[in-house]
């Protein structure tokens, strides 16, 4: 069981968003997409979420083509955290998080549901904001609230036979350094529950620290993929990002990072 993307191409008018992408996203793995702005990371994520339809090629989720899923069944199989969210109405944080329980709301008791909401809010450390109006929160707090909602969608059942997936589009963009690591550690935790995670991350050191599979995109194509150490090679970084930099992992005791040359 996995997500299989087979020679996927998507274009809008003249512009090619994705060009013959082949990729497998395994449950029990954290796959991280990296690449410069406009490389096609978000498009790939949207195609996997079912938001945009492939021009050619196929996406199979657990062996079934993505088009064969109804909205409900798709929601039971994957959760999505998008880059932006508009909210012009004054819901409380608790109300927003509880929306994540929509698909299984009838199957669980009110008590269980409240426990789930409490758990995910504790996980994202937003319990103290439960009664606050969402619109009055800071950017990072809003992002953590939305993440809690997305987590709630996959919280029940805790584990299941059928693999599930979590798509995160720049989940760390507004977060402080502590919460950046916290969120990605959590994503990594989730992979132990038969959940495959696909995340777009801009910070290369952060990506290298957590990814089981790192995928480097440029101009809608996959440049290379695999383990962080092999993907973040000097030649690739220079070709794709135009930076001179080195992958550096001092010891097992510390996370790897990307060191930029003094002379760019």
């Amino acid at each position: 069981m996995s997500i299989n993307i087979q020679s996927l191409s998507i274009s809008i008018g003249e512009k090619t968003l994705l060009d013959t992408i082949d990729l497998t996203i395994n449950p029990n793995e954290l796959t991280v997409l990296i690449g410069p702005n406009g490389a096609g990371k978000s498009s790939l994520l949207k195609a996997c979420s079912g938001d945009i339809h492939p021009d050619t090629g196929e996406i199979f989720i657990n062996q079934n083509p993505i088009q064969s899923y109804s909205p409900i069944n798709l929601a039971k199989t994957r959760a999505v955290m998008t880059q932006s969210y508009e909210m012009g109405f004054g819901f409380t944080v608790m109300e927003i998080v509880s929306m994540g329980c929509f698909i299984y709301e009838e199957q669980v008791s009110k008590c269980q549901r409240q426990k789930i909401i409490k758990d995910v809010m504790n996980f994202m450390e937003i319990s103290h904001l439960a009664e606050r109006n969402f619109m009055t929160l800071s950017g990072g707090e809003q992002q953590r609230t939305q993440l809690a909602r997305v987590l709630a969608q996959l919280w029940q059942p805790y584990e299941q036979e059928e693999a599930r997936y979590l798509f995160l589009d720049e989940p760390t963009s507004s977060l402080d350094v502590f919460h950046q690591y916290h969120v990605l550690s959590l994503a990594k935790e989730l992979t132990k529950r038969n959940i495959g995670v696909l995340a777009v991350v801009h910070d290369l050191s952060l990506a290298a620290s957590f990814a089981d599979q790192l995928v480097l995109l440029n101009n809608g194509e996959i440049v290379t993929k695999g383990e962080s150490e092999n993907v973040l090679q000097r030649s690739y970084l220079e070709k794709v990002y135009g930076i001179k930099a080195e992958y550096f992992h001092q010891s097992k005791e510390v996370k790897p990072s990307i060191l930029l040359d003094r002379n760019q």
Partner: protein
Amino acid sequence: MLDTLTINKQRGARQLLAVPITLALLVFSAIFAMAIGAVSLSGSDILSYVSHGFSPAQDSLSARVLFEIRLPRTVLSLAVGAALGLSGAAMQALFRNPLADPGLIGVAGGGALGAVIVIVLGHSLFPIMMATVGVYALPIGAMIGCLGVCAIIYKLSNRQGQFTIITLLLAGIAVNAIVGSMIGILTLISTDSELRELTFWTMGNLGGNGWSLTLPVLVLIFISLIGLSRLAKPLNLYLLGEAQAQHLGVSVSRLKKQVFVYTAMAVGAAVSISGMIGFVGFVVPHFVRILIGPDHRFLFPVSMLLGASFLTITDIIARVAIIPAELPIGLVTSALGGPFFLFVLYKQTNRH
């Protein structure tokens, strides 16, 4: 911080209390509406008449006033108010904008055009049809106008199964402009008596409708209110954004179509019989949202009940303010609702 906390704690209690309170207000205003008027009836009279069944067995003046004039009018004001209140809330959800209004997408305007065509051109263009349908001509014309506008807007904004809200909004603005100019032209060529009739129609009026005109409208409104009420939960998720709602398992394009069709039906039915009654669909849900928050599971029933009570009370004022004549109800809703809403906004901005 502490302040916001307590405000939101109050919200839960308010949500639970709102339905019983508005329901009580509705019953009270309905009894009041039946009791007050040129012939005054006491509350006990009304109860005894109603408990003896709806057949006007007692042939007294007061029984006939109650069953043939007051009761249909009260029921109609409740239904139209409920329809306007709830469709306002639904429209605001559909556009994810608390300022949206059923008048915005041209539904009400289409109804007005249909009605004005019947008033000004009806007798010269389709004399036989006018003779056959009789008193139904005006509501039928208004209904056809509403549905016609809906069909056009729907067709325009529904491309390849995708239903785009921004096109819906822009098409509504264009349709409203066209409808306005056509009504203007028809007003120019109308005779004095036609001009008087259409002016009063555009100001709204709930009176003069017997059971035969009221019942079909009640059925349409009832169906659409039930339909809309069932969409409360998915509409909450829809406020997160279209993609986000889809991710959570809501079939978004179907949801949008349902809201659109039910709202058009409710507003069309209401406008067809009562004329243009502005402001209720906008001010009622907005006020309710300030009190109990945006959750549609509470917002919908409370807007419906409060809309019904609000319109019934304004109709009482419209009937008794300048006895023996009547004020057009549309004037009263705007005259009362406008300043009240400004006051609420003023209090709101002062608090923050």
